[in-house]
C-alpha cells in the first residue's frame, strides 16, 4: 500500500505594529506581566475596539505579495469560547469575509524543483494572553500583555504532500514576511506559529482522509518531525484497520510523538457572528494602490534580476535574495566596487561567517558595505592578493580601520614588481637545488613547494599570479 500525506498549514504571524490591533497598548516583547494591558485589553465593562490601520495595511501588503484577491469589504466576527487568557470570552477574528482571499506561494525543494502552493486566505485577528501553569502550585497565572496583539492567520490549501514540502513552504513564508517587514517571524518568541493539518490517503485516492490538527509547533525542525510522526501514526492505525479521529493534538519534541489534547468533552461551538462594535472594513483601489507602492521588490524577482543584471548564478542569486537586508548590502558592495561575483563571494562567504559566529544580523555588520567594497577594489587593482585580503578583512572586523589604513599600517601591499619577484624566485630556486632536480625530473607537485617558499619569503605579499608565471618560466629552464 502506497500512502500519500496531505498537509495544510495554518500559520499565525504576529504583525510588527507598534500598538495592538484594537487598542493603543504597546506590543513590545518581554515586558513585565500586565504592564501592556489597558482597560480594553482587560475587557473591562464599557470598553470598545478601534481598528489599527497599520495592521490592515500589513495584511493587504501580504495579500498583494502573494498575488491574492484583496477583500474590499471585510468583516470582523466574534469567535466565542471561554478561556482565562481570552479576556472578553470571545476573540475578534474574521470568518466569512477575510481581508485577503485566494493567493499562492511558490516553493523550491531541495532537488531544485518548484511547486506553487495555493493560499486559501489570510485574515486579521487578535492574539490571546499567556497562561503560566508552572509558577504556582494550585493556580495558573494570566499575563495579558500579548492579548490583543495583531495576528495575520495564513491558511494554505491542503496541497502540500510531504513534510519537506511543508518546511519549504514555511521557510518561504517566513522569508516573505521578513521581506515585507510585517513581522520579525521569530518562531522561538512566538511571532510565527504553525498548526499543521495532517491526513493520509492511498496514492491515487482523490478523497481526503480524516485529518488531525497539530497545534503550535514552534520551529521548522519540529514541523518536519511532527508531520512525519503523525503521518506514520495515522498510517499505522489505518493499516491495522482502525479509523482516524478528527481531533487536536500536540507535538511533544522530547518524545517525538503527537498527543491528543486533553480536549473539552463537547466540541467547541464557536457561535460566530459579526462583531457589532466594529463596522465593515471598506477599502478602495486608492488604498490598495498606496499599499502597493510600499511593496519591496520580492525575492523571486530580485533573484532573477541578480542573475540577469549582475550575471550571478541561480544559486548565488537565490541565496543573496533570500534576505532583503543581505540583498541590499550585496548591491551596495557590487555597485561600489564593480565586481558582482567577488562581492557575492565575500558577502556569502567571509562576511556571513563573521556574522554567524558573532550572532549578528547584517544590519549590525562590523564591516559596512562600502568598507567591504573598498577592500574588494584593492584586490581588483592588485594592491593586495585575495589571501592577504582575508587578513585585512579580519583586521577590519576587529575595528582596526579601513582597508587602506590597514594595508598601509601593516605594510601588506602586494609586491607586483616583476623584477623584485624574479629576484626572490632566483634566491629560492638557488636555495633549493634538490627540489629543483625533483621538479625537472617530472614531479609537478613540487611546484607548490616553490610557490609556498616564495610566498613565505615575501610574507604573502608577492602577487600570486605573477609568482606563478615567473616561477613556471624559471623552472622550465
Amino acid at each position: 500500500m502506497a500512502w500519500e500525506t496531505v498537509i495544510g498549514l495554518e500559520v499565525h504571524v504576529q504583525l510588527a505594529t507598534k500598538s495592538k490591533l484594537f487598542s493603543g497598548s504597546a506590543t513590545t516583547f518581554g515586558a513585565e506581566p500586565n504592564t501592556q494591558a489597558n482597560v480594553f485589553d482587560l475587557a473591562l465593562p464599557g470598553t470598545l475596539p478601534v481598528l489599527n490601520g497599520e495592521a490592515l495595511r500589513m495584511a493587504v501588503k501580504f495579500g498583494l505579495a502573494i498575488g491574492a484577491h484583496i477583500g474590499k469589504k471585510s468583516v470582523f466576527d466574534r469567535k466565542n469560547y471561554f478561556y482565562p487568557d481570552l479576556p472578553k470570552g470571545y476573540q475578534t477574528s474574521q470568518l466569512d469575509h477575510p481581508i485577503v482571499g485566494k493567493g499562492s506561494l511558490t516553493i523550491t525543494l531541495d532537488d531544485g524543483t518548484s511547486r506553487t502552493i495555493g493560499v486559501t486566505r489570510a485574515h486579521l485577528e487578535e492574539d490571546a494572553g499567556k497562561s503560566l501553569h508552572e509558577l504556582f502550585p494550585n493556580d495558573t497565572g494570566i499575563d495579558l500583555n500579548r492579548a490583543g496583539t495583531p495576528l495575520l492567520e495564513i491558511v494554505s490549501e491542503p496541497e502540500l504532500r510531504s513534510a519537506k514540502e511543508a518546511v519549504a513552504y514555511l521557510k518561504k513564508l517566513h522569508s516573505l514576511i521578513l521581506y515585507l517587514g510585517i513581522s520579525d517571524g521569530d518562531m522561538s518568541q512566538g511571532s510565527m506559529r504553525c498548526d499543521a493539518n495532517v491526513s493520509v490517503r492511498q496514492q491515487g485516492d482523490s478523497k481526503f482522509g480524516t485529518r488531525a490538527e497539530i497545534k503550535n509547533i514552534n520551529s521548522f525542525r519540529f514541523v518536519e518531525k511532527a508531520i512525519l510522526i503523525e503521518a506514520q501514526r495515522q498510517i499505522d492505525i489505518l493499516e491495522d484497520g482502525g479509523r482516524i479521529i478528527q481531533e487536536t493534538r500536540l507535538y511533544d519534541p522530547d518524545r517525538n510523538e503527537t498527543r491528543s489534547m486533553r480536549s473539552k468533552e463537547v466540541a467547541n461551538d464557536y457561535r460566530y457572528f459579526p462583531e457589532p462594535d466594529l463596522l465593515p472594513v471598506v477599502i478602495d483601489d486608492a488604498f490598495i494602490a498606496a499599499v502597493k507602492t510600499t511593496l519591496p521588490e520580492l525575492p523571486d524577482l530580485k533573484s532573477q534580476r541578480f542573475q540577469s543584471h549582475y550575471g550571478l548564478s541561480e544559486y548565488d542569486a537565490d541565496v543573496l535574495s533570500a534576505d532583503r537586508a543581505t540583498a541590499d548590502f550585496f548591491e551596495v558592495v557590487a555597485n561600489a566596487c564593480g565586481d558582482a561575483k567577488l562581492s557575492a563571494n565575500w558577502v556569502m562567504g567571509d562576511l556571513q561567517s563573521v556574522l554567524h559566529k558573532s550572532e549578528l544580523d547584517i544590519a549590525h555588520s562590523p564591516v559596512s558595505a562600502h568598507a567591504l567594497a573598498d577592500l574588494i577594489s584593492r584586490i581588483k587593482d592588485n594592491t593586495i592578493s585575495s589571501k592577504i585580503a582575508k587578513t585585512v578583512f579580519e583586521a577590519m572586523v576587529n575595528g582596526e580601520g579601513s582597508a587602506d589604513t590597514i594595508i598601509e599600517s601593516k605594510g601588506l601591499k602586494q609586491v607586483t614588481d616583476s623584477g623584485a619577484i624574479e629576484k626572490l624566485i632566483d634566491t629560492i630556486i638557488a636555495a633549493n637545488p634538490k627540489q629543483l632536480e625533483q621538479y625537472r625530473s617530472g614531479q609537478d607537485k613540487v611546484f607548490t613547494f616553490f610557490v609556498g617558499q616564495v610566498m613565505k619569503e615575501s610574507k604573502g605579499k608577492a602577487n600570486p599570479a605573477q609568482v606563478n608565471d615567473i616561477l613556471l618560466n624559471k623552472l622550465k629552464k
Partner: protein
Amino acid sequence: MTSEMTPKMNDALKQGVAELARSLARKDFTSVELTRAYLERIDQHNPQLNAYVTVTGEQALVQAQAADQARAAGTAAPYAGIPFAHKDIFCTSGVRTACGSRMLDNFIAPYDATVVEKMRQAGMVMLGKTNMDEFAMGSSNETSWYGPVKNPWNHTLVPGGSSGGSAAAVAAHLCPAATATDTGGSIRQPASFCGLTGIKPTYGRISRWGMIAFASSLDQAGVLTRSAEDAAILMQMMSGFDPKDSTSVDVPVPDYLATLDQPLKGLRIGLPKQHFAVGLNPEVEKQIRAALSEFEKQGAVLKEISLDNSHLSVSAYYVLAPAEASANLSRYDGVRFGYRCDKPVDLEDMYKRTRGEGFGDEVKRRIMIGTYALSAGYYDAYYIKAQKVRRLIKDDFDRAFREVDVIMGPTSPHTAFPLGSKTKDPVTMYLEDIYTIAVNLAGLPGLSVPAGLVNGLPIGLQIVGRDFSEAQLLNLAHRFQQATDWHTHTPGV
C-alpha cells in the same frame, strides 16, 4: 444636622435645568446649597423609592464648591453646579458602577465613560448612580440586584425599565435630570410611566465608550428630564463624535436650543395604524389623540401610515439583543474584576458558579436565548432571520419618511403596571416595548413626552424622526409643552 429645606430651597428643587442655570447666575442660591438640599431629599425619600444605588454626597459637594468658586470668578460654564444623576451603567472613575448586578457590586470603575467626562467638563454635579434593571435587561426595573424601584406616582407600581432609577429620581425631584440608556425602549417607556421627557437619540449620536454594553448595535445613551428644553441642554452636552467608539458617527451637533421654538406649520405627522390597534388601552388612546390634535392646532397634518412589519419587531429584538448580550457578558468570569464565587474547585467550577451566582435569572435566561440563537444549526433560522427582519423594519420607516416628516403614537400601550404583575410570563413583559423596539432596530431617534393622565397616571406620546433629527424632535416636544402642561405634573411623593 440642620435642614436645607427652607421654602426657598424647596422651590429650588422644583426647578428644571434651564431654570436652575438662571437661578444660579442670579445667585438666588449657591450650588452647594442646592446640592445639599438634593442630598437631604434623597436621604429622605430614596429608602422608599430605591432610585439611587450609590449617592456620591462628598464628591458632589466638592464639585458644587468648585462651581461656586468658578461662578464667583466669572469663569463658570453656563450649567456648572447643577446637580444630576448618572444611570449606573456609565463607568464613573473611582465610584462603584454596578449595572444593577451582583456581578459588579464590588466594581469600582477605573475610568470615566465619555458621557461622564463630558458632563464633568460641563461642570454638572453628580449626585450619584441610579438603579436599573440588571445589565439593562428589563422593562420594569424589577430585575436589579439592589431591589425594585418604585414609581413615585404610586409606590405599588413599576417606574418602567431599564432606566427605572433615573426616571423615579427625576419624577420625585431627587435630581432635575438623569442620564439613561435605551436599547428597546428603556428611556422612553419609563418616561411614559413617570411623566417625564425622555429622548433616545440616533444610534451613533452619543458615544458608547464606558457605557456597559448590553446589545452593542442597539444601545444608545440619552436623558430623562422634566422638559424638552432641559433635554436639549443635556443632549448638547452629551452628543458628539468620539474616536474611541467605532460606531460613533462623525456628524456635527447642531445647537439644539436654537431651534426649540420653530413653528411646525405644514409638518406631516404619520400615525402607524399598527400602534393604534388591539392592545392599546382605549383611555390611553383617547389622551394620545387629544395630544395629536394639539399638533394639528399648530398647523401639522396627520396621516395614517403603515409599518407593515411592526408586529415582528419584538421577535427580531429578542433574538438580536440576547445574541449580542450573550457575547458581551462573557467577560464576566471572575478573573480580572467583579464577583467571583467562593472557593472554586477548578476553572470550570469558577466560571459556572461565578456566573450562576453573579447573574440574576432574567440575565441568565437572555444569555441562554442568545447562545441558542447563535449556536450551530440555529444561526440562520434565528440570528440571520432576525437581521433580515431588521432590514424590513428599517425599510418600513424609510418608506414612511418619504410621506411624512415624523411618526407619532403612544409610547406604551398602558400606564404603569403593578410590581410583580408581569414577572411570571416573560412574553407579556417583552410586549411592553411593542411601540418602542422598532425604533432601536432601525437606529432612529425617539422621544417620549408626557401627554396626559389616565386614572391619575401619566402616559407618554412617542415622537420618532429620521436619522439625526433630534433637533426637530426636541422642537416638537417643546412646542407641545408650551401649549400644554402635562409635563409640569409631578407626583406628590
